[in-house]
Every structure is written in structure tokens, then in C-alpha cells.
């Protein structure tokens, strides 16, 4: 039977090779633009601001300050890539960040500064990861919409923080051994930047170079289909929320160790920029996927855009507008891209 059948099929369609090659070349050109438009925009912005603010914008002190200011957002956003790639929203990260800021500051205050720094860090990270676990269990076990779960839990985490802090800034007895971590340098580079680089490399490795990363993306693109194909989607979702909570908590530690106090309302400001950067990032380098290089470029575009405009004396409200606009722009770009892919077929 196999012999009689093997001749049964013919290629469904063949296209003249020359025309095919031509179209292919056209598509590769579009492909390149699709992937690199973001980085190009970043370069263009740097050039424009250098010309617009000569001697102020393109200085090592200004740029270092810009980068250093983005480290907390970067840590949150790198963790956020996991749930986003796995197809779920985690908007509790602001709450988790606040909770971690308060947890770390409060453990020192309660022990009059005698709490060993590594232990305080451990406790804080455990709190963040547990917060992620709570989200995950609600989403996976009870099949509740992740958006709703994390909207609610984020608010609860914020509430707990305010309760613990009693609505006050927690600032007593935070040891210098701890603040040295946030303010110190390694080979002349501020520690938070070193942390971001290391974390980015780890996240990049996991997402791009391990089967786990592939399964995370597969879960995001089609949870039920992936599950039926053998992907342990439940465990992947749990992992995604735990990593996201862990990273938000890490960002909280960066905050407390840099500022030296715990404020019970810090988290919210990092939510929007991390989403904006992640979505902006998903339109470049590897369009259609949340990816680390894209995220970093997205962050840079947001940070440099705002910094450059501020140097021009643009008013304060521009920041929110710029970030919100970037988020919507990113989603619009993704939509347009999907439409063009469909028309291609």
C-alpha cells in the first residue's frame, strides 16, 4: 500500500522561482525594518537630543543618571516578561514592589537594625515570590482571569503594606550595610546597573536558549493547545507568576537600599513604564514576542525620550503622557503587524 500511495501527492503549488526570489528579497527588507525600527528610533532620538541640548544631554553623568533611574523599572519589567510571554497579565507587581519595600525596611526597624542583611533580603524575596504564588494558585486552581486576580491582589498587597507601615514612612534603623548595596559600585558601575545586566542575561538565557523558554512562549500563544501537546502549562503559569513576584520584590530591595527608607506608596509608579517598555519591546528585534533585547531598547526609548524632553524644559505631565502613548503605540504596531501577516497569506 505504501508504494501505491507514495506517488499520490503532488506539490500543491509552485511559483516561478525568479518571482519568488524577488518577493522574498522584498519581504526580507520589510523584515529587517520590522525588527530594527525600534533601535533605529533610539539612535535617532539620541542624535536629535545631542543636537538640541549640546553639552548637556550626551554627557556620561547625564546618561549614567538616566540608566540608573531606570534600574528599578528594568528589574520589574524583566520579571514581567515571564507572565506576558506566557499569555497572562500580572498587574500586582506594583503592590508586590511596595510590599517588599515595606517588608525590608520594617524587618530592620522591628529588630532595631540587628537583622542580618542577607536574612532580610531573603525574607523580602520570599514574600515577593509567595505573593506571586498566591496569584498563580488563584489563576491556575480556580481558573480566574489573571487580570482580575492581580488587580485585586495588587491592591491587597498595597493594603497590607500600609497596615504594616501604619501609613508612615518606615525609615528607622536601616543599616548602612544594606544601603551600601544600593548605593555602591562595582568597577565604577553602580550596583543596580550590574544587577540589571546580570538579570537581563539570565532572563534572556531562559527565554531564548532553553526548552522552558519555548514552552513559556507556547503557553502564551495557545494555552490549551500547548497543554494538549504535552506542555505542563499549569506549572509554567505558576513559575511565571512566582518569577514576576520575585523580580518585583528584587526591585523593591533596590529601591529601599538606594533611598534608605520604605514608603508605603512607591510601587504604582513602576507599573505603567514596565508595561510600556515590555509592549514596546515586543514590536522589535523579535516582533510578536516579548523579548529581552526589545525590552531594554523599549526602556531606553522611554527613558531617553523623557530625559531629553525634560532637558528641553518640557513640563512634568509629559512623563505620564509619553509612557501611556508609548504603550498604546506599541499595541497598535503589534495589531498592524498581525494584519499585514494575515494579508500575506
Amino acid at each position, binding site marked *: *500500500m*505504501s508504494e*501505491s*500511495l*507514495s*506517488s*499520490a*501527492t*503532488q*506539490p*500543491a*503549488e*509552485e*511559483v516561478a522561482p525568479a*518571482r*519568488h526570489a524577488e*518577493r*522574498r528579497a*522584498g*519581504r526580507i527588507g520589510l523584515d529587517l525594518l520590522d525588527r530594527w525600527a525600534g533601535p533605529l528610533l533610539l539612535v535617532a532620538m539620541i542624535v536629535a537630543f545631542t543636537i538640541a541640548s549640546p553639552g548637556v544631554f550626551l554627557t556620561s553623568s547625564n546618561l549614567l543618571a538616566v540608566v540608573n533611574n531606570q534600574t528599578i523599572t528594568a528589574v520589574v519589567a524583566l520579571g514581567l516578561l515571564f507572565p506576558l510571554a506566557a499569555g497572562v497579565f500580572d498587574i500586582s507587581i506594583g503592590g508586590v514592589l511596595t510590599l517588599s519595600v515595606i517588608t525590608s525596611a520594617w524587618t530592620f526597624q522591628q529588630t532595631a537594625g540587628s537583622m542580618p542583611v542577607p536574612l532580610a533580603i531573603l525574607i523580602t524575596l520570599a514574600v515577593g515570590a509567595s505573593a506571586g504564588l498566591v496569584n498563580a494558585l488563584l489563576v491556575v486552581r480556580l481558573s480566574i482571569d489573571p487580570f482580575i486576580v492581580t488587580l485585586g491582589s495588587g491592591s491587597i498587597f498595597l493594603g497590607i503594606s500600609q497596615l504594616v507601615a501604619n501609613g508612615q514612612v518606615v525609615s528607622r534603623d536601616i543599616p548602612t550595610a544594606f544601603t551600601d548595596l544600593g548605593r555602591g559600585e562595582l568597577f565604577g558601575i553602580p550596583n543596580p546597573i550590574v544587577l540589571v545586566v546580570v538579570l537581563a542575561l539570565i532572563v534572556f538565557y531562559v527565554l*531564548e*536558549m*532553553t*526548552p522552558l*523558554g*519555548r*514552552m513559556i*512562549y*507556547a503557553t502564551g*500563544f*495557545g494555552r*490549551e*493547545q*500547548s*497543554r*494538549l*501537546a*504535552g*506542555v*505542563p502549562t499549569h506549572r509554567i503559569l505558576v513559575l511565571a507568576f512566582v518569577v514576576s513576584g520575585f523580580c518585583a520584590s528584587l526591585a523593591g530591595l533596590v529601591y529601599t537600599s538606594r533611598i534608605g527608607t520604605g514608603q508605603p506608596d512607591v510601587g504604582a509608579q513602576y507599573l505603567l513604564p514596565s508595561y510600556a517598555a515590555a509592549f514596546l519591546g515586543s514590536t522589535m528585534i523579535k516582533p*510578536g514576542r516579548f523579548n529581552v533585547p526589545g525590552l531594554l531598547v523599549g526602556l531606553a526609548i522611554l527613558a531617553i525620550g523623557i530625559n531629553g524632553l525634560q532637558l528641553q524644559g518640557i513640563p512634568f505631565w509629559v512623563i505620564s503622557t509619553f509612557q501611556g502613548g508609548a504603550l498604546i503605540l506599541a499595541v497598535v504596531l503589534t495589531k498592524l503587524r498581525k494584519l499585514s*501577516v*494575515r494579508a*500575506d*497569506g
Partner: protein
Amino acid sequence: MTTDDAAALELHGIVKTFPGQRALDGVDFTVARGEIHALLGHNGSGKSTLIKVLSGFHQPDDGRCSVAGSRLRFGDGVAVSRAGVRIIHQDIGLVDELSVLENLRLGVGTYRAGTLGAIRWRGERSAARARLDDLGLGHLDPDAEVAGLSAVERTEVAVARAIDDPDAIRVLVLDEASAALPEEQVQHLFRLVRTLAARGVGVVYVTHRLEEVIDLADRVTVLRDGEVVLQESVSALTREDLARVIAGSEVAAVHATDRAAGRTAGAAVLTLDDVVAGRELAGASLTLREGEVLGVAGLAGSGVHEVVRLLQGRAPLRGGTVAVAGAPVARPGVRALRRLGVAVLPGERDQKRITGMTVAENITIADLSPYWRGGRFRHGEERAEAVALVERYRIRPPDVRRPIELLSGGNAQKAYVARLLRTAPRVLVLEEPTHGVDVGGTAEILRLLVEAARNEGTAVLLCSSDTDDLAATCDRVLVLRDGVVADELTDKEITRERIVELCYAAG
């Protein structure tokens, strides 16, 4: 200008090109009033594109169209609808949570509103009942929730919805409307189609089932590579003629294999014993052996679909035992069954397609471990294997980096079969693996299944409503009725006619 003798639908010189692909190359297509015109072709032959040109979804590069003698502008869905053209797609677009009545009112026309804009439900209900009766669909209850309807009833609702004003309808296009229907229910659909044709509606009937063409259609048009290769009256044609023209080459008739003859049956790898599960299975027992292809046939509601869901791990087991390789599986869930080497190809597309990922990624996702060595994912090796599989399964176009959603249904189906066979499963369960797949692709898929059974010793459970597939490939065929295995066919007993006969047999 509308004249009585004008054709219901006339498409002339339609040309449509996509990047890297010439989908339609000067297609002429005419449907007379009251004619049932079958439209056939390979996956990727241009059928779907032609329908999409008609519906206004695609703007053709060239050509013209008229409906009942009036020229129609392309790319305007509203004008198409106003001209009396109705198109029913394979996924018929009903809203499960709404009632039949609400679905009938969806999109077409509006509710007649009373004072304060409130809907007059009583009037709506009697109007719906009248419309259903008029189409010979009196058995449908306007208040029934669509989720609870059988496949054919859903199709009937979709058709009834399309026929909102029987006098204004000139052309009805059924785009693989029968693909999800078991064989015995197709007859209900045929009755409805004939009723409409008798009223002068021109029916375009797109299908892959050649028997249906012979049974139902007056004329047939076959497309290949975007061109019309055959257009004539059906009465002069046989199934084999059509298969040959579609494939564009001599298709050897799919015929029985050396069937179990002389081959000793292997060890039992999957046993269902007195299984009660899902809504339908009521004490079903079967044994699947290593290296055999076991067919499962049955009407809708007989339990075939529940067998698939059970082995997917999605239907709760309420009684009896499921055993793999002799060991009972306590809780047959999705992960447990996968781990035991039970791989399932479900019938529904949205349980298979991971949209947004490439063909390669869709194929390899079931097992990534071969590429993970020394702490690094070997992308090159993955790609090489995907390329080899695309070559072997003749997936077109042969581009593993293409997003899966850009493949035609049949080619995507081959990719999903590749996904499963690549993991060398102990048990391979397939539900309607050749639905929507063209003749050549069907032969290809069936050949791969038989090869897997013969060469790798895979135990194959083929659940299909396509009796040709069953007759061509199976060593044994089980027939399910009322949730139990009612009959078993072996060797020479396995014929298309016998399977159908047993499916219908009473009690």
C-alpha cells in the same frame, strides 16, 4: 438590470495574487438558478480565495462578478449581502451561549422593537418558528441553547440564519459545511440544500468529500493551482475521475492493505474495560494492540468523540478502567496519559494550532528534549529536523519559519500529525485526521499512519466518520452505538457499505 434567464452567479476572469503566490489565475465560474454546483480542489488550489473574493474579503486584481444579471462591485461585503449572496463558512460562527432564536437574529436584520425599543419576544419567536418550518427545520426549537445542539442542527441553524429573506436570496455558498458532520447527518443537510435549490437559489457547495459531489451536485468545477481544470455535469463523472482531476495525476485508488493477514497481533497496549465516561460512553470496552490500526466508527452521539476526549484526559472517567500496557491508569488526565505515551490528535482545529508560532515550533513543541544539551537549546538541530519533516510530509509551502496560521488547513493538519508521530508515541489516537484535507494529503497522512504501525509498532486508533479512510487503512473496525462497542469488523468484512450499515443498525 435583472433578467429571469441570467445566471444566479457569474464570476469572470478572476485574478488574485499574493506575495509569492498566484492564488487565482483567470477563473470563470457560473452557477445557474436552482443549480447545485460543487467546487473542488486541493488545499491551496484557490477555492477559499475564490470564496473570499466573492464575499468581499479579498479584492481581486482583475475580473468581474454579477449576481442575477447585476454587476457587483468587489470588496464590499454589504453590497454582496444586499445582492442576495449568503456564505456559510466551515466554522459557522454561531454563538454557543445564545438561543437558536438569538442566533437567527445575529447580524442579519434587527429585532422588531416595540414601545421604548424593547424587543417583542413573542413576535420574534413565532417569526423564527415560521422561518424554520418554511425550510423544513420544524424540529429546531427557537428557545434551545445552541451549545446543546448536534453538529448538523448547528449547521441547519447557520443556514436558516443566512436565509433571512427566502425571496431575496440568489446564491448560497456552503464552504465545507459538511466537514464537521458525521455521514448520516449529511443527508439532513442535503435535504435542506435541495429545498433551497428547488426555489431557484444557486448553491455553491465546497467540499472534499467526493461522494457528496456525486450524490448532490448538478455540476462541478475543479480548481488546481488557481485555474479551472474541469467544469462539467456531474452525471458523467465517477469518484475516481474527480480524484484524478483534483490531484492532477493518476491517483492509485486507496485500497486495503495486507491487513492482519499472516501478521500476529502484538501485545495489548491500550484497554478500555466497561468504561463509563463523559456524556456518551456507557460501558465501552476495547483492546488496542501493538502495531495495529484499529478503526472506530459510529454516528454522532454514539460515543466516538467521547473516546477521543477520554484518551485526551478531558472526559471524566466515571466507571470502568483504562489501562495502558496492562497497568490501570488511576486518574487518566492530560499529563498522565501523555507520560504513558498516549498521543491524541483532536478533531477541533483550535485544540491543535498554536497561532503566532512558526511551523517548526508547532511541530517540535510536543518534545523539546532532543535539542537541549549542555545547557543550550540547539536551534540549528531543531530547524534541521523540522525541515526534514516538512519535506517528508510534503507540507506546502516548505518554509518552517512561516507562522502556522498561514498554512492551509490540510497542510497544517500534516504538521500536527508530524508533531505527534515525531514523539514516537506508544498509542496514537486520531480524530478525523483527514477532515478538510485534499485527496493527495489524505493518502499521505493515511500512509504515514500505516507506516508508523507497521514499522514502529505504534498502536493506532483511528476515529473517523470517513468510511473510505477506515476501509483503506484499518486492520479491524469497531462500531459504536449508544455508548458501547456494538460490532467488530475484521479482514474482508471491512467495507465502506458494511461500516455504514452497522452504524445505522438498531440497538
